């Protein structure tokens, strides 16, 4: 980590380029993203002024796009946990170029998820009432606590492994930003004791982050399963949502990997093998997701409860059939077809599968929320939910803001962990050899 020939920062200079140089393409990207963010902000300003009536929500469909977005974005946050924490704990060496990208997704997307809930409130000026008058009996408070814990843990889990890389930047950059990196580097000089502290802290965080992450999406699912509504009041929701979250998280990670590889010329770091392995994980999650979905719908269908069946048929063959079957195709059919043969995992195919999964998982949240609300137990008149441009604008703004925050992050910190790559090359190989030797028969 200190002076070895050649200097790691020199060898990996391509990882520092985005921070040291800024080209025209960056400004164009930021410009385009800002357009969508401004669309979303303008749409929200109208909603602030005139009330939630500017959306397509009504009686009884009182939740729609905003809650869908909330669940969807919080779901994507599981990208970081799975890759960083689980792969770190299982000592999978192929995680090294990917961990930081994944962790950044988690941190940024949690803000977007929380923002969507605030946008959904009828009285956002009273949001502090949750602090003054909160009730822990309500699943929304479980959400608040859990997401706060996850955000704190994720920021820590992003920051701590970044310290050696911040030190590299501190040593290379002069001027105003030098102080910024110097404060954050916490005096890192690469001594063995510091390395030990760092490794221990990362190990603790990796173990801690996993249960927190699982609790986050479980309590998000409890917002629905703790009510008595048909096809919401189901015990499978906790694990179902967690599986869906990990699924959509891997897809989001794959897309961001592919984009960053292209834009920042990381072809030597993000190799086809990384896409291959993550593609396998995506396939596994797709099969798992299908298993949960199948179990859920078969149980409802077999029980044949009239109110549940109204919702069931609305999804299967009624007004939501198009979205339901698109979801199944996007989440199961296409990924399985594209990914089932490991040898054919090109980067393009994996990215195509990921893109369809993103669409499919957004549709999945929508299909869970709206058809149940459209078919209440005591039906007075037929309900229809047609989202307005305000809600579309807010969706576009959410995606754009997330990507913007991500892009801004890459301008300040290296998106691939330089010291972990170095560690992999110098120490990892020997460790893996030792480990594999220990699996083999001994003393024969």
């Amino acid at each position: 980590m200190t002076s070895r020939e050649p200097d790691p920062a020199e060898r990996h200079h391509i990882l520092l380029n985005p921070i040291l140089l800024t080209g025209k393409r960056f400004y164009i990207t930021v410009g385009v993203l800002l357009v969508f963010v401004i669309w979303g902000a303008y749409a929200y300003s109208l909603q602030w002024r005139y009330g939630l009536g500017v959306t397509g929500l009504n009686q009884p469909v009182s939740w729609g796009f905003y809650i869908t977005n909330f669940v969807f974005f919080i779901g994507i946050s599981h990208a970081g946990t799975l890759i960083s924490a689980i792969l770190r704990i299982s000592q999978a060496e192929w995680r090294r170029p990917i961990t930081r990208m994944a962790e950044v997704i988690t941190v940024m997307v949690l803000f977007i998820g929380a923002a969507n809930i605030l946008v959904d409130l009828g009285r956002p000026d009273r949001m502090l009432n949750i602090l003054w008058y909160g009730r822990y009996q309500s699943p929304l408070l479980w959400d608040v606590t859990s997401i706060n814990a996850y955000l704190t843990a994720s920021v820590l889990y992003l920051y701590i492994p970044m310290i050696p890389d911040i030190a590299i930047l501190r040593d290379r950059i002069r001027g105003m930003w030098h102080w910024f990196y110097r404060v954050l580097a916490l005096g890192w000089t690469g001594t063995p004791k510091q390395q030990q502290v760092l490794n221990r802290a990362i190990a603790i965080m990796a173990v801690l982050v996993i249960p927190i992450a699982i609790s986050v999406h479980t309590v998000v699912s409890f917002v629905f399963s703790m009510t008595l509504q048909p096809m919401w009041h189901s015990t499978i929701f906790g694990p179902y949502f967690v599986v869906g979250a990990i699924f959509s998280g891997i897809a989001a990670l794959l897309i961001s990997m592919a984009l960053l590889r292209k834009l920042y010329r990381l072809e030597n770091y993000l190799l086809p093998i990384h896409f291959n392995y993550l593609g396998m994980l995506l396939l596994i999650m797709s099969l798992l997701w299908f298993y949960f979905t199948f179990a859920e719908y078969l149980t409802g269908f077999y029980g044949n409860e009239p109110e549940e069946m109204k919702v069931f048929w609305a999804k299967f063959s009624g007004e939501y059939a198009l979205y339901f079957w698109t979801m199944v195709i996007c989440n199961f059919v296409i990924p399985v077809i594209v990914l089932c043969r490991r040898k054919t995992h090109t980067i393009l195919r994996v990215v195509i599968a990921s893109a369809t999964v993103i669409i499919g998982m957004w549709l999945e949240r929508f299909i869970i929320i709206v058809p149940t609300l459209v078919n209440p137990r005591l039906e007075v008149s037929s309900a229809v939910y047609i989202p307005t441009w305000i809600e579309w604008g807010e969706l576009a703004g959410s995606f754009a803001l997330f990507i913007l925050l991500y892009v801004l992050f890459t301008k300040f910190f290296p998106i691939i962990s330089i010291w972990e790559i170095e560690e992999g090359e110098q120490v990892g190989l020997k460790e893996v050899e030792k480990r594999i030797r220990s699996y083999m028969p001994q003393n024969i």
Partner: protein
Amino acid sequence: MGNDTGPHKKDLDPSQKKRTMHLWGMVIDLDKCTGCQACVIACKAENNIPFVGQGQAEKGRDIKWMEIITETHGEYPKMKTRFIPRPCLHCDDPPCTKVCPVHATYRNPEGIVAQVYSRCIGCRFCMAACPYTAKYFNWNHFKIPKVMRRYNPDVSVRPKGVVEKCTFCHHRLMKAKDRAAYEVREFRPEEYIPACVESCPSQAMYFGDLKDSKSEVAKLAGSPRGFRLLEDLGTKPKVIYLSEGEKHDLP
């Protein structure tokens, strides 16, 4: 909601429990209900419920604390329509109060499920949780047209972005209790009657103290014709319906 600003410590004062606690409930005789909707209109007039206008009503934003559910049975020419007036059922185990994040809806000791407009943040979780869809949201700043603008001074007007619902005309209860206190006498349960019950032309609705075994409501609640909506969900609603008699000839 008049003087009521939310759950208070004094509501749980043990000395108050020794006084007779009422349990307000309603009985609706479906054999007498003609579906005339006088109760719907009386409720709207009494509770300053805004006119959302035709455009908004077509989008499904109409606020009707008391609503008539129509069920048609059979096929032409042997059709029968059933009219079921549905106010808030003021459950004894309300699913809506469980999920409110800010104590903006709660069940008071006399059995009325109350709404605190000034604290509601408009998350609409209670709306999603209510199996009877008895809660309504102020999607815009709805107004009453000038020509009709005769507000009832006892009922607060709700701002946009908060949830509201039937309150069993709780302000009338407060007024009756105040009047009794002013006239230094006992409050009599017969003095408290919601607007819908009062307005029903066929006298199909009864209201009173379910705990008072001598009241008409308590007696009718035990009738063999009595049933509650979605009873198997365990919400313990306090609106009891009396099903139609043999002459009603439902298929």
